């Protein structure tokens, strides 16, 4: 819309016509207080805090519902508005308990700030305050009625934002009260958005309440370790006797690709780190067959000695390596480098949850065709094939819903299940579970394979008329089906794609070459020349065994050693424990998982919240992970691999080319202050980065990744400031014609499950138990 010019507090401002006065003022640095107004949600005008004087209008106007117009003259801070706001606060405080010293929100409470600012500390009311007991609405949501100021933010974010509609307001006037949908408790997705959006301490979190004050925590922006969406989260952490614990997860500063959104897992399921079963000492299987704690030195010596013997006597092909979906790109990369250069084997794999290799092959050479999670917020039309984002990719579902609400985006859903996003869909088609491939052919214009009807015909016509389209597809698509889908998409004018995989770094695991036939960047192992050059040693050129083949080989007695990093194949692939009895098994994990229980050596590993590096979400958005928590006794997977290599007699400097310093951050990111090593160290420490370039510095490996994997060679400045950077997926070097075995095994994690992490999260377990009548969790998920 055309711009209009108006005056606020004597300042001439310009904004598009129709902009809300409150937004226009905020954009110009003029803060107008408001409780009920929340950007992105519908307007309420309930709190009356944002009243301003607009010339030629009879009464004070609410800035949150007044659109700017040409020539408007506004005063935001006059004696009149101050008095009005003070009176409003006095009314709000009429029954407010003023228990700030014990309230969770104390110190970050909007009502507290406003009372402080407008000085409504004396009340003309003499009536007794009505006290009501706190209510527990769910394991994660508590409600303290007297603190509530009835701004309706929670009602709106739950209804409009989450499409859950679990909160409402009952009664009227002074008896109004926020009410949960099941009389005394909530039946909802337990996302906790209502808690974060609450301007006061009326809604409090089951994990955080009464534990600390906001100013007693350090706040670290990092990436959630659960699903493949890679939401940015700000962790509130505090030192404990044995490290640093996470007390809170939220993203109230709206930084990152997810804005202020987090689901239940991001917001509450970090407590696995403090589980009593967490391993903190290395274990070695003793002569009596039991695992017993030993020192790190002993465990590393023992593991390296056995690995070395097997490698030297039976060759690298007798060793297998299984990596993780939840370690950083650097660790994943390091693991395959360790396997290929030091163990000299291509028997490298991981639990695959999406066929990223086929996706990379299909997109090869097509620049800018991969969608970022951000794109879902602005795309005009979105086609969703398979998957259930509400359960499996909550942030994606949030972006899609928001896009529909704000921009009236057109959503097309085709799948074999009744998913919640169909409510936002313009059109939906029911597919038989095995008809995805034929449906895509049908969309592309090939009739015959798919049983068409009027609905599908209208669906196809609508999609083909879209001027731009974003296609998101689930693990229903693999191998050639992805190629067919991408080919169809590319035949339309402007199409972008997203391949939906399951874990925090599933994408990174594939991109970083945890595959028996592909090196980082999907370079075939048969064409490893420039890798060998960089690594300074020859690489095995025969494709290795994949995960299933490795396990079969172990059962036959052909695999003498298996090194498992952050994975639980014993449960995930249902291995018979006896199959691994003749295999020397090294496991590094947080817990004594079913796989670790079979191991000869177990290393206690740090989780993603306890390390620094990068992860890639399923959309190809690269983000920086920062160390937030700590646990004494455990070490990062990165450090364990390097130390193991060292014990195996390898030169750590060759494995981790630290100190080369070619691309490392020597302070460039500090701009004018660059070049001063000591102050650089201070800056790095303040940002929770490794303060020196050591063999444990993930950035030395990120340098190497950026040298060898063109898709990852993205500007680093943005990453270091905590933002996402999208990969250049067109630059992968995969051989698109190769026929590859389909090994995709979806994790089947739903909203309240998250593999092994979910099992060890007390809060998630509690929520699942409280919902057993309402929904069944997925089959005992592992990994």
């Amino acid at each position, binding site marked *: 819309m055309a711009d209009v010019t108006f005056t606020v507090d004597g300042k001439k401002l310009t904004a598009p016509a129709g902009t809300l006065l409150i937004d226009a003022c905020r954009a110009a640095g003029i803060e107008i207080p408001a409780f009920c107004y929340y950007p992105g949600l519908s307007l309420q005008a309930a709190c009356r805090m944002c009243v301003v004087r607009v010339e030629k209008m009879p009464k004070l106007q609410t800035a949150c519902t007044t659109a700017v117009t040409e020539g408007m003259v506004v005063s935001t801070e006059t004696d009149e508005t101050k008095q009005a706001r003070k009176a409003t606060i006095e009314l709000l405080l009429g029954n407010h308990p003023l228990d700030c010293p014990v309230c969770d929100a104390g110190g970050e409470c909007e009502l507290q700030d406003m009372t402080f600012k407008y000085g409504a500390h004396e009340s003309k009311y003499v009536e007794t305050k009505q006290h009501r007991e706190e209510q527990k609405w769910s394991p994660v949501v508590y409600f303290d009625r007297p603190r509530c100021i009835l701004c309706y933010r929670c009602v709106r974010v739950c209804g409009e934002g989450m499409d859950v*509609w679990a909160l*409402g307001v*009952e*009664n*009227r006037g002074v008896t109004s009260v926020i*009410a*949960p949908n*099941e009389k005394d408790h909530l039946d909802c997705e337990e996302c906790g958005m209502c808690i974060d959006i609450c301007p006061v301490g009326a809604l409090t979190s089951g994990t955080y309440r009464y534990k600390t004050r906001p100013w007693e925590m350090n706040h670290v922006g990092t990436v959630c370790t659960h699903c493949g969406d890679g939401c940015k989260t700000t962790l509130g952490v505090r030192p404990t006797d044995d490290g640093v614990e996470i007390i809170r997860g939220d993203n109230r500063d709206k930084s990152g690709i997810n804005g202020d959104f987090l689901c239940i897992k991001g917001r509450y399921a970090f407590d696995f780190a403090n589980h009593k079963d967490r391993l903190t000492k290395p274990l070695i299987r003793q002569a009596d067959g039991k695992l017993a704690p030993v020192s790190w030195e002993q465990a590393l010596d023992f593991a390296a000695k056995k690995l070395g013997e097997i490698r030297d006597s039976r060759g690298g092909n007798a060793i297998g390596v299984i990596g993780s979906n939840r370690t950083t790109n650097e660790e994943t990369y390091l693991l395959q480098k360790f396997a290929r250069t030091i163990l000299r084997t291509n028997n490298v794999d991981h639990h695959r949850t999406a066929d990223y290799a086929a996706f990379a092959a299909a997109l090869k050479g097509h620049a800018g065709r991969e969608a970022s999670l951000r794109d879902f917020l602005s795309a005009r039309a979105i086609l969703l094939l398979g998957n259930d984002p509400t359960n499996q990719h909550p942030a994606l579902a949030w972006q899609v819903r928001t896009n529909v609400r704000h921009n009236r985006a057109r959503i097309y859903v085709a799948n074999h299940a009744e998913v919640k996003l169909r409510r936002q869909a313009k059109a939906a088609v029911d597919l038989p579970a095995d008809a995805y491939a034929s449906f895509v052919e049908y969309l592309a214009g090939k009739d015959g394979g798919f049983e068409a009807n009027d609905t599908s015909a209208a669906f196809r016509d609508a999609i083909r008329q879209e001027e731009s389209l974003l296609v998101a597809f689930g693990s229903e698509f693999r191998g050639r089906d992805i190629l067919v889908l991408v080919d169809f998409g590319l035949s339309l004018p402007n199409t972008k794609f997203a391949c939906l995989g399951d874990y925090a770094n599933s994408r990174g695991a594939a991109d970083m070459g945890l595959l028996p036939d592909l090196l980082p960047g999907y370079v075939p192992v048969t064409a490893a020349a420039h890798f060998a050059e960089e690594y300074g040693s020859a690489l095995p050129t025969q494709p290795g065994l994949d995960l299933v083949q490795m396990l079969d080989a172990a059962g036959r007695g052909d695999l003498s050693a298996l090194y498992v990093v952050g994975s639980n194949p014993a449960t995930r692939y249902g291995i018979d424990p006896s199959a691994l009895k003749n295999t020397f098994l090294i496991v590094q994990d947080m817990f004594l998982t079913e796989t670790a229980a079979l191991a000869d050596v177990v290393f206690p590993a740090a989780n993603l919240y306890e390390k620094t590096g990068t992860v890639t979400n399923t959309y190809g958005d690269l983000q920086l992970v920062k160390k937030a928590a700590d646990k004494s006794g455990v070490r990062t997977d990165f450090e364990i691999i390097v130390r193991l290599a060292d014990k195996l007699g390898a030169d750590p400097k060759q494995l981790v080319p630290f100190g080369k310093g070619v691309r490392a951050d020597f302070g460039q990111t500090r701009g004018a202050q660059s070049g001063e090593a000591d102050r650089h160290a201070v800056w790095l420490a303040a940002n929770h980065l490794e303060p020196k370039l050591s063999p444990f510095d993930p950035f030395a490996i990120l340098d190497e990744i950026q040298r060898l994997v063109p898709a990852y060679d993205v500007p680093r400045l943005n990453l270091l400031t905590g933002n996402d950077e999208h990969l250049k997926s067109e630059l992968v070097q995969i051989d698109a014609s190769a026929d590859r075995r389909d090994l995709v095994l979806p994790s089947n994690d739903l909203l309240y499950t998250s593999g092994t992490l979910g099992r060890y999260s007390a809060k998630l377990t509690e929520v699942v138990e409280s919902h057993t009548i309402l929904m069944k969790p997925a089959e005992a998920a592992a990994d």
Partner: protein
Amino acid sequence: MATETTTIFSPELAARFDKLVTQYPVRRSALIPMLLYAQDEVGYLSPAVIAEVAVRVGIKESDVLSVLSYYSLLRTKPAGKFNVQVCTNICCMLRGGNELFEHCKKRLGVGNKGVTPDGVFSLEEVECIGACSWAPAVQINYDFHENLTPESMDSLLEDYRAKAGK
């Protein structure tokens, strides 16, 4: 909802509801008229009424409850056959509305929002009913009675009691 097979309402009302939900741009807009008609037929908004209305409008029961709890006209408990609503707002108050209300309380033997044991009358003190020119005024179900005194109120109640048997 046209596909509704079982209903707790009369066939006429059910048919009316089927049409009602199609008459607004947003289905939800049919909620308040629907609640009013349902209350007229059933007498009050029972849990069964709320449940069916929620299904018909396509929202959750808690949403229906949020809306109906806002309006004093909508009730979730049974009223008497004749609901006596006495206005005590300013005009009626000046012309003896409070005395009229007290008189009704004594006469019917129930307090505000009470129902007589025989279920014939219920009493309610209400805000302005828009009959200020003829204050004090009382609304019994949908009928207005104006310029009342305790004496004329008595005969009015007698008339209604006589009607109750029929």
